[in-house]
C-alpha cells in the first residue's frame, strides 16, 4: 500500500535516517521501533506528507501521492487535535465529518469505543485515555485504508489497549494496513521495523 524508497530525513542539522526502504502490504501491520529521538515520529510525518524528505520517495499503491493522501491516510499523532473548550460531541463530529464520515459511521464509532457517556462533557474534563479514544473514533467512523499511528497506546489502560488491538486487527482483516510507532509490542502480529538499526 505504501512503498518507501531510499528515504533520507534530517531535522535541522541532525540526520535521522538515510536510505530507508520498506513496503507496507495490504493486511499488514508494521511496528516502528527505535530509541527516543530516533525519528519514528519524523518517519510517520514524512509518510503522511507533512515533512518533505531530503531524499527518496513515498509511493502509494494505486494512488497518486500528494493530493490523494488525504483520502487514504488516517493520521493519529500524540497530539489529538481536540479543542479543550468544546464538547466531546462537537469535536468528534467535526473530526469525523472532516475525515469524510457520515452519521452512521459516527454512530458506529461511538458504539464501538463506548463514547456515549463522554459526549456531553467538555474535552478538558476528559482524561488522556478518554481523549485518545475520542480521537481514535474518526479512524472507525471514516474508513481509510492506511493508518499512521504515533504511540497510539500511550495513555490507554490495559482494557482499552486490548480493545484497540482488536479494532486494528479488524482493520487489517478488511485489507487495510497500519504503521504504528511503539515502545511496547503491538497486541497483534506485526513486522518490526527498527529505524535506530538502519544507521
Amino acid at each position, binding site marked *: 500500500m505504501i512503498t518507501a524508497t531510499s528515504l533520507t530525513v534530517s531535522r535541522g542539522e541532525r540526520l535521522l535516517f538515510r536510505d530507508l526502504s520498506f513496503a507496507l502490504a495490504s493486511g499488514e501491520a508494521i511496528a516502528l521501533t527505535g530509541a527516543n529521538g530516533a525519528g519514528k515520529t519524523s518517519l510517520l510525518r514524512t509518510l503522511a506528507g507533512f515533512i518533505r524528505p531530503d531524499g527518496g520517495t513515498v509511493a502509494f499503491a494505486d494512488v497518486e501521492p500528494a493530493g490523494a493522501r488525504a483520502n487514504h491516510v488516517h493520521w493519529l499523532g500524540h497530539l*489529538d*487535535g481536540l479543542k479543550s473548550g468544546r464538547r466531546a460531541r462537537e469535536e468528534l463530529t467535526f473530526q469525523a465529518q472532516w475525515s469524510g464520515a457520515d452519521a452512521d459511521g459516527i454512530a458506529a464509532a461511538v458504539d464501538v469505543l463506548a463514547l456515549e457517556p463522554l459526549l456531553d462533557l467538555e474535552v478538558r474534563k476528559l482524561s488522556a485515555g478518554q481523549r485518545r479514544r475520542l480521537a481514535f473514533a474518526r479512524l472507525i467512523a471514516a474508513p481509510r485504508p492506511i493508518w499512521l499511528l504515533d504511540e497510539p497506546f500511550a495513555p490507554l489502560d490495559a482494557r482499552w489497549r486490548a480493545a484497540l488491538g482488536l479494532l486494528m486487527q479488524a482493520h487489517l482483516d478488511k485489507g487495510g494496513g497500519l504503521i504504528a510507532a511503539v515502545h511496547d509490542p503491538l497486541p497483534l502480529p506485526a513486522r518490526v521495523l527498527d529505524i535506530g538499526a538502519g544507521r
Partner: protein
Amino acid sequence: MRTLLVLFRRELALAWAGGGGPLLACGFFLCLTVLVPLAAGGDPAGLKPVAGGIAWLALALSSILSLERLFERDLEDGALDLIALGPVPLELVVLTKAKAQWLAVGAPLAITAPLAAVTLGLPPALAPLVGLSALIGALGFALTGALGAALALGAKRGGLLIAVVVLPLFIPPVVFGAGALERAANGLDPTPALAFLAAYVLFAAVVTPFAAAAAIRNAQG
C-alpha cells in the same frame, strides 16, 4: 463543499467560544475611538475631517487582535495535521478560515464602525457608507491577516510578529476606505474609492490562500 461548511461552522463556533473574541475586538475598537478625542484635545470640530480616517485605523488595529489564534491554536493541539489530511486542499482551508474570521470578527466590527465614526463627528448620513466600506474592508483584513497568521506560525511572540507583518499590508484598504468616506463627506461620489477597496479584497482573495497554505506546510514540516 459540504466538508468546507463543516469547517466553516467549526471556525465560527471557535471564534465565539471561550470569552467571545469578537466582542473583545469590538470593545477594543470603541476604546480606541474614545481615546483619540481625549488625546487630541477638547476641540471636536478639529476631529471632524479625520473622523473617517480614525475609524478605519481603529478598524485595522482591532482586526489584528484575534488573528493569532487563527492557525496557531490548531498547530499547537495537532488539529492542523488532521485538517491537512482532509478532502480539500489547504488553500481552500485558508479561504474558509478567513471567511469565518470575517463573519465572526469583521462583521461585528463593521456594525460597530458607524457608531464610532459618528461619535467622532462624521455626519450621521454617512453611517451606512461607513458600515458598507468597513464590511468590505474587513474581508480584506481577514484575508491578509490570515497570511500574516500563517507566516507567524511556530514563531515565538507570534502575535507581535503578525502585527508587524500585517499592518503594512493593511495600508491600501485603510487609504481607500478612509478615502471613500472623505469623498462622500465632501459631496463627491465615493464609488471609485470603494471600487479600489473591492479590488484590493479580490486581489487578496486570489493571492493570500496560496501564500498562506505554503507557509502552513512549511510550519508543519
